[in-house]
C-alpha cells in the first residue's frame, strides 16, 4: 500500500515537493505509536537526505472520515495564516484513501519534544518552565485569533451541548449526592458562562509537550499530531490540557495518587510553580477576553470534556484488539474488574472528583 502512495508521489513529485530532486525510491520506517491514537505512521526517506522528508499517517479504521476532514481543514486554514503559525505546523502534502484506509502525508518539522527539567525536589524547574509557558502562550494566543471564527458562536447551542455533556457524565459515572449537587449547580450556571465565553475554538485536541517540538537552533516551536483536532471546542481546552499534563508523566512514581498529587500541586497547592500556572492562565484569558471570575467553572467544563473524550476513545478501542493498557492498569489499582467499569477508567474522572471535593471545601481555582 505504501507502494501505491509512492507511485502517486513520484508521478507528481514536483507539485508535492517543489525544489527537491525526484528520487528513484522512497524508504520507510514504521512507527506504530500508541494504540489510542488509532493511527500508525511511517517516515519517508529519500537519498541523499539524512533526515526523513515526510511522514505518512495511516488511519487504521475505515470510519476516520471526520478526523481526517478536521485535520485537513485546520492545517489548510493555518497554512494560509501569518508566518508565526504557518511555520509552526506541518505542511499537509496529501490526504487520500488507498485500499479503504486514509493516508495523510505531512512534512517533517524540526525539533524535539519539549523536555521537562526538574529541580532537586522533583518539581518543574521554574526558569525553564517559564520559558516553555511563554512560548506556548504566545502560540496559543495567535492560534486562537486565527481559528475562533471557524466555529460560529451560538449561546443556546453552548447551553444545550453542555447540558447534554454534564448529563452524560452523570449517566456514565457514579457521583454522591453532594457531588451531583455541584454538577447541577454547574448546569444552572451555563447561561452565565455562555455570556462570558462568547466563542468556540478549533482545538488541537492533544496539546501536550510531547506534541510540541522545540528547535534549539532557531528557538522555534512546531505543533504536530493534529489527529484529534476538533471544532466547537472550549477556547481554553488546549491551554488547560497542556498545563494539566505538563508535569504529569515526569513524576517518579506511577499511580492514581501520584497523578492527583501532581494535579493538586499544579493548580491548588501554594507554590511558585502553581503561581506560574495561574499567571499563565490569567494572561491567556485576558488575551481571549474571557473574564476569570468563572475560571473554576470553565476548568470544570474542560475536565468534563476531556473525561468524555477519553471515555469515547476507550469505547472505540476494542477495534484495536484490546483496551488501552493504562485503563486496565488504573482499574487494577482500584480492584475494578467489571469490564463496563474498566471502560470508564481514566485519570480525568479522578481530577473531576478532586475538583468537586475542593469545591465542596470552597477551594476554588479562581480564589487563588
Amino acid at each position: 500500500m505504501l507502494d501505491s502512495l509512492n507511485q502517486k508521489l513520484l508521478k507528481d513529485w514536483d507539485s508535492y515537493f517543489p525544489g527537491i530532486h525526484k528520487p528513484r525510491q522512497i524508504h520507510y520506517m514504521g512507527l506504530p505509536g500508541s494504540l489510542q491514537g488509532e493511527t500508525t505512521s511511517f517516515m519517508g526517506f529519500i537519498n541523499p537526505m539524512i533526515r526523513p522528508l515526510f511522514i505518512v499517517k495511516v488511519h487504521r479504521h475505515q470510519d476516520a472520515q471526520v478526523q481526517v476532514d478536521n485535520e485537513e481543514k485546520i492545517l489548510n486554514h493555518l497554512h494560509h495564516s501569518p508566518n508565526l503559525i504557518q511555520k509552526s505546523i506541518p505542511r499537509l502534502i496529501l490526504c487520500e484513501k488507498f485500499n479503504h484506509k486514509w493516508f495523510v502525508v505531512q512534512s517533517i518539522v524540526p525539533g524535539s519534544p519539549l523536555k521537562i527539567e526538574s529541580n532537586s525536589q522533583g518539581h518543574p524547574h521554574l526558569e525553564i518552565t517559564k520559558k516553555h509557558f511563554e512560548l506556548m502562550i504566545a502560540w496559543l494566543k495567535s492560534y486562537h485569533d486565527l481559528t475562533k471564527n471557524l466555529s460560529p458562536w451560538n449561546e443556546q447551542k453552548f447551553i444545550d451541548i453542555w447540558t447534554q455533556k454534564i448529563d452524560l457524565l452523570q449517566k456514565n459515572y457514579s457521583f454522591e449526592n453532594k457531588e451531583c449537587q455541584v454538577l447541577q449547580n454547574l448546569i444552572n450556571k451555563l447561561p452565565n458562562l455562555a455570556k462570558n465565553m462568547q466563542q468556540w475554538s478549533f482545538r488541537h485536541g492533544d496539546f501536550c509537550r510531547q506534541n510540541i517540538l522545540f528547535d534549539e537552533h532557531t528557538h522555534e516551536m512546531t505543533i504536530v499530531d493534529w489527529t484529534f483536532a476538533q471544532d466547537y471546542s472550549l477556547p481554553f481546552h488546549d491551554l488547560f490540557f497542556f498545563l494539566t499534563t505538563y508535569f504529569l508523566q515526569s513524576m517518579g512514581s506511577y499511580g492514581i495518587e501520584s497523578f492527583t498529587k501532581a494535579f493538586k500541586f499544579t493548580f491548588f497547592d501554594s507554590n511558585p510553580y502553581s503561581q506560574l500556572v495561574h499567571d499563565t492562565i490569567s494572561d491567556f484569558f485576558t488575551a481571549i477576553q474571557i473574564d476569570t471570575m468563572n475560571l473554576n467553572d470553565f476548568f470544570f467544563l474542560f475536565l468534563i470534556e476531556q473525561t468524555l473524550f477519553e471515555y469515547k476513545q476507550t469505547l472505540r478501542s476494542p477495534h484495536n484488539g484490546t483496551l488501552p493498557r493504562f485503563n486496565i492498569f488504573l482499574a487494577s489499582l482500584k480492584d475494578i474488574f467489571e469490564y463496563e467499569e474498566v471502560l470508564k477508567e481514566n485519570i480525568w474522572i479522578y481530577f473531576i472528583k478532586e475538583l468537586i471535593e475542593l469545591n465542596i471545601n470552597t477551594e476554588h481555582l479562581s480564589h487563588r
Partner: protein
Amino acid sequence: MPINQQDIESIATQTQKKGWDEAIFQYSLNQIKKNERIPEDLRIADWIYFLPESSLENVLVIGAGLGTTPLALASICQHVTCIDSNESQIDILKRRAQSYSHLRTFLSDNWAQINNQSYSLIAVQDLSLAFQLTHSQTLHDLNNQLHQLLSLNGSLQLFLRNKYSIQYLMDRSDHIKQTRFYSLNQYRKMFKKSGFSQVSTYAPIPHFDSIPLFYLPVDYHRALKYFFKVIFPLFEMVSPEVTKQYGLQYQVAKLGANGAMFFHLYPLVKYFLSGYLFIATKHAR
C-alpha cells in the same frame, strides 16, 4: 509471541460467552497483574502497509493467533484464508470475523484443500505450524514449498529470529534452543535460492515477535542512523508505564546503541537485532 494453551482456551470460552471485548480485557488484566506482556494488538499487523499492492488479492494466513493479523489483512484484502491447528484459535477468529464474509477459516486437516490454490500473499504467523503443514524439515524446504503456492509476483511474509541477537543469546527457553535459526545474510541467501527476487527486510523493535514500537528498514542506513541518533533517545520521554514494560531490553539496547553511535558502527547494528520481518516477492523461474 506464543500464548499458552490454557489461556487460549479461556479466551475462546469467554469470547463465546461474553464476546471478544470482555474476553481480551480479562486476559489483559491477568497479564498486567503478572507484569507480563499482552501478545497482540493492531500494531502487530502494521507491517501490512509495507505490502505491495499486487499481494492483496488472495491471502493465506498460516496461524490465527488471536485473530489480529487475519482481521487486519481482511480489512485491505479481497480474500483471506486462515488456517490453524488450534480449534480454539479458529473459534476466536470466527467469532471476531463475523462481519468479514471474505475471510474463511480452516483447521489444519483441511490443508489439502488449501494448498491446491495459488495465493498472492502467504503470511506465516506460526512458523512451527507452517513446517508441520508442508512437512518441511528445513527453512529452505519451507520457502520452496510456499514459493510454489504463490502466484506470479506473490509475496511471502515471515517473522524470523536472528541467531546473533542478544535476546537469543540470553534466552534459555528449551523450545528456542531446539529450533534452528540463522543470521540476516543467511536468511536472504535462502530466499534468493528459493526463487524470491526481491526481499524487503524490516526489524521490529524492540522484539520481532511481539508488539513493536518501530519497524526499521534494515537496508537503509540513513534511516538506521536517524533512528539511533534522533528517535531512540526520545524513548526516555515516554510514560513510566512503557519504560517499565521494556525496562531491561531498553537498557541493553541503549548500551548497544550508544556504543554503535560512538564508534560509527550503526550500519552493523542490523546484524544483532532480535529478528526480522521479511517480505519476499516471487519472480518467474
